């Protein structure tokens, strides 16, 4: 890594031109904190459902529709946010996302109609998440880190998002309990404004943009023609399906099976905590071993964990074992998938290409939440969905096997390597 002197802009040996204080460690720390706030805040919205629907006389469907809309806007908006960040720099996109996020939270607090809630919680917060989520932030970190440390860096910044998911939930619950849901939303809005100063650390010219003449359209076409990109996106879709199914339906499943609330909350806390460890560990492993092999192991471990969970008699111990294993593999897919996109296609359009794959993850999330509920309504139990989840893990592992991880940037005929 090159040292900087007196705030003079220097060309980093990787792919971002950095000035003075924006060292890779600062980029990593600030990127992790942006994800902590943005992904963590999003995790808390379920806590607002009971008090808001009760006070405002809304149905759960009104609340649920806005959150579903938010996920769609996030998934669809992220490739565009990624493309803008790749072309014009990430800092403005992240800062704009932070403003949209804060504005959305403030307007959520003052929404009295379903439509206003759709605009605030659905569209504005969804746009905020597009600008401040994994795609844009990991693109910057992926470019700032040297190739041999990229996977570990992505794991570490992903662990920031995981920590947010774990810690923001009790933070929001404490705010709601002490100050009420309206004030809690305003405090969360103020918290999300932290993203704006943090974004300044993620500024920097995308040097890869100037060493390769590949256009955005050509990059998307290249990725679309690469079978591995499709396999990676499909396996990422499986990840989305499984995680959202477990997140939404596990509590209901445990209640059905006669487990106590303490067992259920312990399981959710264990998933949250071990998700932090797992994100970083998967990033580290991806830097040391073949990323597709680590992904295959990850999905394989999930398949075994789910199978044992439904096959063995349910007890606190089997539940905690399942929660720890799922936590360790929860968001570990993110640094591995992002790292593999960077490894195959280079980092010039990393935010865009990862964000498109992430759209697959979000579609999987939607299907996981919906299919779980549908099958429960049709069959009266979750057994079919658990079996389907385990089978999907095997499919995801099989999808990763044929991915050609080799760098394609050197194969482009008329341009310099990105």
């Amino acid at each position, binding site marked *: 890594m090159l040292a900087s002197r007196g705030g003079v802009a220097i060309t980093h040996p990787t792919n971002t031109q950095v000035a003075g204080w924006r060292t890779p460690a600062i980029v990593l720390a600030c990127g992790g904190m942006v994800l902590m706030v943005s992904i963590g805040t999003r995790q808390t919205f379920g806590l607002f459902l009971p008090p808001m629907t009760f006070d405002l006389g809304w149905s759960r469907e009104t609340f649920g529709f806005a959150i579903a809309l938010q996920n769609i806007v996030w998934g669809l908006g992220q490739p565009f946010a990624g493309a803008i960040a790749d072309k014009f720099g990430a800092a403005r996109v992240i800062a704009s996302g932070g403003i949209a996020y804060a504005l959305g939270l403030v307007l959520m607090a003052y929404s009295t109609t379903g439509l206003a809630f759709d605009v605030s919680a659905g569209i504005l917060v969804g746009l905020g998440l597009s600008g401040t989520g994994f795609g844009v932030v990991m693109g910057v970190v992926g470019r700032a880190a040297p190739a041999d440390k990229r996977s570990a860096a992505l794991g570490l910044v992903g662990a920031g998002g995981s920590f947010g998911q774990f*810690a923001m939930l*009790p933070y929001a619950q404490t705010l709601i309990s002490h100050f009420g849901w309206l004030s809690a939303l305003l405090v969360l809005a103020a918290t999300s404004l932290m993203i704006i100063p943090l974004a300044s650390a993620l500024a920097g010219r995308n040097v890869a943009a100037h060493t390769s003449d590949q256009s955005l359209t050509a990059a998307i076409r290249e990725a679309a023609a690469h079978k591995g990109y499709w396999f990676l996106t499909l396996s990422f879709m499986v990840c989305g399906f499984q995680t959202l199914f477990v997140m939404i339906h596990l509590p209901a499943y445990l209640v059905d099976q006669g487990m106590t609330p303490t067992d*259920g*909350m312990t399981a959710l806390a264990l998933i949250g905590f071990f998700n932090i460890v797992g994100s970083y560990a998967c990033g580290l492993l991806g830097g040391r071993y073949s990323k597709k092999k680590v992904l295959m192991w990850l999905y394989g471990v999930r398949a075994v964990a789910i199978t044992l969970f439904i096959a063995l008699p349910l007890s606190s111990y089997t539940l905690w074992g399942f929660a720890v294993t799922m936590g360790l593999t929860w968001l570990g897919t993110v640094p591995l998938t992002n790292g593999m996109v960077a490894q195959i296609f280079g980092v010039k359009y990393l935010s865009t290409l990862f964000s498109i794959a992430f759209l697959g993850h979000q579609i999987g999330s939607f299907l996981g939440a919906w299919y779980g509920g549908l099958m429960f309504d049709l069959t009266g139990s979750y057994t079919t969905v658990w079996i389907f989840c385990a089978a999907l893990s095997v499919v995801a592992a099989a999808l990763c096997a044929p991915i050609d991880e080799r760098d394609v940037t050197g194969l482009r005929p008329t341009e310099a390597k990105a």
Partner: protein
Amino acid sequence: MIRQTHRPLLWIVLAALLAYVTYLSFKAYLGPDFLIGYANMFSC
């Protein structure tokens, strides 16, 4: 910039802070607010 000698201290402070936040989070997850919310999640 942080001096080389201060770096271990910074890591110790950060690790202690993270451990404290983790402890508070676990405690909150198993606190009455969350447990009551969890118990009522499917009955209202």
